[in-house]
Every structure is written in C-alpha cells, then in structure tokens.
C-alpha cells in the first residue's frame, strides 16, 4: 500500500520466508551436487588391509606370534569356513592361530575373550550380543593395549569391524530379484520374508532386500508377510508352511541365510506350489547346499554371497596391520555380491565335489559406497 509503513516483524517474516523458499528450491540442487561429488578418498588403513601380501610386508613390520578368534557359534558353516580362511592366512604369515567358541553363551564368550587376550598379540572377536559385550571389550582393549578385531557386528572397544554391509548386500540382491521378476514373473512380486528379527544385521538384510526389489518394481513389489525363521531350517520350514497357507500367492521367498531360504523352498514344495513361477533368494551362500541349489537350476536362483573364506583372510590381514600400528577405519567392508548359476564359477572352483574360493575374483568386487 502506497504511503503505508511496513511493520518490522512482518518484514522479518517476509525475509525469512524468502530465505526458506530459496533453501527449499536449492535442496535438490545440493543433493544432486552431492551425488555428483566424487566418492570420498578410501581410508589409507583400509587400502593397506586390502593389499597385504604375507611375503612382501612393508619394511620394519613384525608379525604377531599368536591370534585367537573367539567365535559366537562355531558349529555354523559360516564360522567353519571363516576360521578355515583365517587359519590358512595365518599359516601364510607363520602366525599361530586358534579358535575358541562360545556356542551362543554370552558369559562364555566374554570369559574366553578375557582369557585369550592375555596370551595373544591380537584378538579376533565375534560377539554373542553386541551391546552387553561392549563394556568388557572396551576394558580389555584399554587394559592390554592390544588390538581387537571384531567380526560380524559392531561392538564398542573394537579396533575395527570386518564384515559385509548387510543392508547394501541385501539391496544388491533385491535389485537382481526385481529385474528377474520383471523379466520372468510379470513384474509382480509377492514376497515372503523369512527373517530373524532378534539380530540387527539380519534385520538390515531383509530391509535392504525389500528396498532393493522395490527400487526396481515400485508398487509391483509387496511383502505378503515377514516371519521369524530363527535362522534355522526346521523352524523356517515350519513358519513358512503356515505363512504360505495364509498367502498362497507368494512368488518370491527371501531368507536371511541359506537355511532360511532353503527351508522356505521346502515348505513351498510341500504345499504343492508351482516352482516354475517361484524365485527363492538366499543370503550368505557359505555352504555347499546353496551352491548346489543354484547349480540345479530350480527356483533358488540367487544368493547374496558373503565369501567367508575371503573374510577370514581380511580378519587376519586387519589383525597384522593393527598390530603394526596402522590406523584402521571403523569398518573394513568385506565384499558381497549376488551369485547365480551363471557367475558362481567366477568366484568358486568346483573340484571333486568341493568348492574352492577364487580370492582374486572376490577381491575385485567393489565395496564403494558401502559402510
């Protein structure tokens, strides 16, 4: 209004509105600019761990005499293959390697860590439970000054964590599944998620898978039901049988490990379902069962491989680097990728019924952007 005087408060509000509007308009540009920014420089410690050669260590480095890995569930195939990988790599360095297993007993796990760290140069540790282990691991690290390399789950007090990025691995295999559904199942995925809600890592796998498949199919992907298979095949068969009765239109089964996925497949077959219109997606592929299932050419088409033998090597390499004072990142991301009947031979060689990991090919898998 001509001649009128603007109230000072109104003026401030107006300027604030202009600034906020400008910020809102600039947000997409800022986000896009961030996307266009080159990836952060890899952590030097991370690069050191990935490029280590037992026969050609940097000058002045010393090799730790003993490393012990306190595992949480040693009878599982994952830990058997992981510790085999550690043992082989330790032998290449000339390190005495031992494994102590807690068999899912938290107190036994912490007691074993207390005892082992006094007699070793580096402790590798897989927690039974992350948070309740943190205080003990932090105290042991402070008291002894020795490196503690954690596996699987982040735990307070650890020098670093060596594990895959569960969400990213789930996402990648979810994208693969989405593209398969688009090409072969009419673009509509009705998903049975056989999860393990008690563990954050397995929750992340399910979440990553669902986000990945949804990124391809959009509304064409629907989670019919998420059930708790407890990571065990007998339990997975049981809960999947009930869930498939309630959701007979399921055409994609996702399991947070090999046993869960294979259990879901058994339940589907038991219910007399048409497996030609089914996609089964596994996670881990640490054992022969998964690899054989992939090669059979049935509905088990893909699994997010975690390469336990290679991760075992990384654990020992990280331990040697930490022992020599290399500053490590909080997380050394182990590689994972969707494996299928078509690319399995790239990562594993089958001889006399046994699969041997091809470390060179696994080392080439990109972990860029994973955390």
């Amino acid at each position, binding site marked *: 209004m001509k001649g009128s005087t603007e109230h000072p408060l109104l003026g401030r509000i107006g300027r604030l509105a202009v600034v906020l509007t400008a910020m809102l308009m600039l947000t997409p540009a800022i986000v896009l600019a961030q996307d266009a920014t080159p990836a952060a420089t890899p952590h030097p410690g991370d690069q050191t761990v990935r490029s280590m050669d037992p026969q050609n260590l940097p000058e002045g480095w010393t090799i730790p005499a003993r490393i012990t890995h306190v595992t949480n569930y040693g*009878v*599982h*195939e994952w830990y*058997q293959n992981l510790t085999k990988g550690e043992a082989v790599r330790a032998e290449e360095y000339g390190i005495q390697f031992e494994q102590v297993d807690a068999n899912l007993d938290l107190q036994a796990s912490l007691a074993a860590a207390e005892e082992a760290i006094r007699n070793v140069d580096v402790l590798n540790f897989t927690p039974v439970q992350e948070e309740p282990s943190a205080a003990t691991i932090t105290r042991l690290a402070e008291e002894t000054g020795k490196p503690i390399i954690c596996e699987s789950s982040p735990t307070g007090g650890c020098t670093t964590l060596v594990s895959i990025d569960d969400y990213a691995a789930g996402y990648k295999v979810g994208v693969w599944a989405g593209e398969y559904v688009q090409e072969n199942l009419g673009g509509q995925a009705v998903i049975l998620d056989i999860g393990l*809600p008690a563990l954050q890592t397995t929750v992340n796998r399910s979440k990553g898978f669902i986000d990945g498949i949804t990124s391809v199919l959009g509304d064409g992907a629907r989670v019919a*039901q998420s*059930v*708790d298979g*407890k990571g*065990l*095949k*007998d*339990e997975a*068969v*049981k*809960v999947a*049988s*009930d*869930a498939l*009765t*309630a959701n*007979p239109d399921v055409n994609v089964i996702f399991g947070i490990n090999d*046993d869960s996925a*294979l*259990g879901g497949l*058994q339940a589907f*077959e*038991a*219910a007399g379902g048409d497996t030609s219109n089914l996609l089964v997606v596994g996670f881990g592929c640490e*054992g*022969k*069962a998964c690899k*054989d299932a992939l090669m059979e050419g049935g509905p088990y088409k893909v699994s997010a491989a975690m390469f336990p033998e290679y991760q075992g090597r990384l654990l020992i390499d990280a331990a040697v680097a930490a022992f020599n004072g290399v500053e490590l990142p909080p997380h050394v991301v182990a590689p994972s990728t969707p494996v299928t009947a078509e690319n399995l031979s790239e990562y594993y060689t089958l001889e006399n019924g046994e699969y041997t990991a091809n470390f060179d090919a696994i080392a080439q898998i990109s972990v860029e952007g994973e955390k």
Partner: protein
Amino acid sequence: MSAETVRTTAEIEIGGRRANPLAGAARRLFAAQEGILLLCIVALFLYLANRSPVFWTERNIGTLLTQISMVAITAIGMTLLIIAREVDLSVGSMQAFIGVLAMQTLNATENLFVGLVVALLVGAIVGLINAGLTLGLGISSFVVTLAMFSIVRGAAYTSTDAAVQNEHKIPAFRTIGIGAIIDEPVRIPWPVIIMAAVFIIFFLVLRGTTFGRYIYAVGGNPKAAALSGIPVNLVKTACFVITSMLAALSAFILIARMNSGQNNAGFGFELQVIGAVLLGGASLAGGKGTLIGTLLATILLGTISNGITLLKWDTNWQTAVPGIVIVIAVFLDALRRRVTREEA
C-alpha cells in the same frame, strides 16, 4: 437292586428331578483334563475360523496336522515315560543327531529301509543308555538325560561340519515328509498317518495290555509295584527305549520334510514335547496321564502357533503364548480339581 444301579439312579435323580443329560455330559467333560483341552481347542478353532479365511481349509488343516505330527509322535513315548515317573530331555538333540546319521546312511546305502532301521536302532541304543544310567546307577533321569542332551548334540556337531544334503534322491524318501497317502476326497499327508498309527498302537497298549497297567503301577507307587512282582526296571527301560525310538522316528520324518539332516535341528523340541505331555494331564510325579490328553494338548499348542502366523501377529508371541496357555490350562485344571474334589 445292585449298588451300581443305586449309584446310577442317584446320579441321575437330583432333588427329585431328572437331571438334564446335556448338563451331565458337560459335567463329565469338565471333570477331566481332556475336557478342558477340548473346550480350549473348540474355542480356538471357532476364533481362528472367524478371524482367518484360510484357517478352516483342507490345506491349512493338513499343514497344521503335519506340523504337529513330529511333536505328537515323540510326545506319545514321553507320556509313557512320564507316567512311569521318568523323563527324557535328550529328544530334541536326537532330532539333530539321528537326522544327520540317517541322512548319511541313506546317502551311503541308497536304501530307505536301511536308513530307517539305523535311525530306530540308534534311537533304541540311546534309550538303553538313558535307562542303564538312570536305573543302574540310581541317578535321576532328569540329570542323565540332561547330560545325554549335550552328548547327543555334540555328536551331531562332530559327525558333520554342515548340513547333510540329500544325495541319494530316493523318491519315496520325500514322500514320507511331504507326500500324501491319499489326495481325494481329502488330502491326508503321510506324517499324519504315521502319527495316527503310532497313537492307535500305544493307546491300545496303554489301555488294554498288562504292560500298560504296569506303567501306571510303576509310576504311581514303584515300591508297591515291585512288591507285587512287577518288573519295575524292565518296564521303565521299555519306556525309555520306546521314547527314544519314537524320537528317532520323528527325526526321520523331519529330515524328509527338510530334505537334509541338520546338526542344528530340534532346538527347544524337548520343551514342546514335555510341555504337551504335562498340559495333557500327566504328572511328573508319575502314575497319571493319558494319550488322548497328550494328543489334544499337542493340537492346542500347534493350533496356537499356526494361528499366530495366519493372523500375522508378532512372531515373538510364538514363544510367549504357549507358556500363557499352559498357565491357563493348569489354572483351569486346579479349578476343576477343587470343584470335583480330586486329589492332585
């Protein structure tokens, strides 16, 4: 007029009026643990049929009965053992050990009969060891079978690094786990038929044979039974062996369902089995229990588990709800005892 006739008349004539036959039937139903369980099952079936459109379908009932068959078969043996005043905590670990061993045997021999016989024989040996240590050394069966629980689980882990896959590909093997004896007019899965056969055999044994009466006598008062000339240790040994062999049969069905022998199978299985037997009206003090009660309790617990998944409840309830049901059933049983003035 005989005493029997007088009692019957007195029961019918109440206050000069003829009692309602329905009320009489209800009273008789409520007077037994089986009646309480039956009422719970009917109520649960009605609730689930109302809440889930797939509950009362042929497919779901078939799935439900197949799921409970493995628990029920082992629980039948466990009922005999608990009536005889003993218990076996090793049946869960046996699901792993016998399963792995049976699958290894099947892979090696490619003979279904040999695989089954080996499973049952190893089961019998475990039962004999349990009986020998319990009765020979006078150690509580709780302690002996707790030790066996660890030993057998350890044996499963030792005998294989990983799951033993089906390499024999015997067609009839899968049929045991997922096939049906008939498909029309209703599909009756093989595990359900095996469960029914085992139930009928041991129902007749427990109700109609001298051995069955001996089991109740041995559990009710072992000293009196021994003084009466009943071979107490022999009867108890038979119960241990039967329980272990039926656990082995369950393990065989389980590997046929999974198509592999898993060394981590059967976690918590012993609790499901013993829970069903106790919920069915058996007492750890011995001398008491029925196979009908055990079967009804197994159906009740299995239906709860099935219903939780069908209704898409938080699956953590699968652990908690059966415990709540056991507490409710025990409360109703205590109420029933107070009303009928029956001794615990």
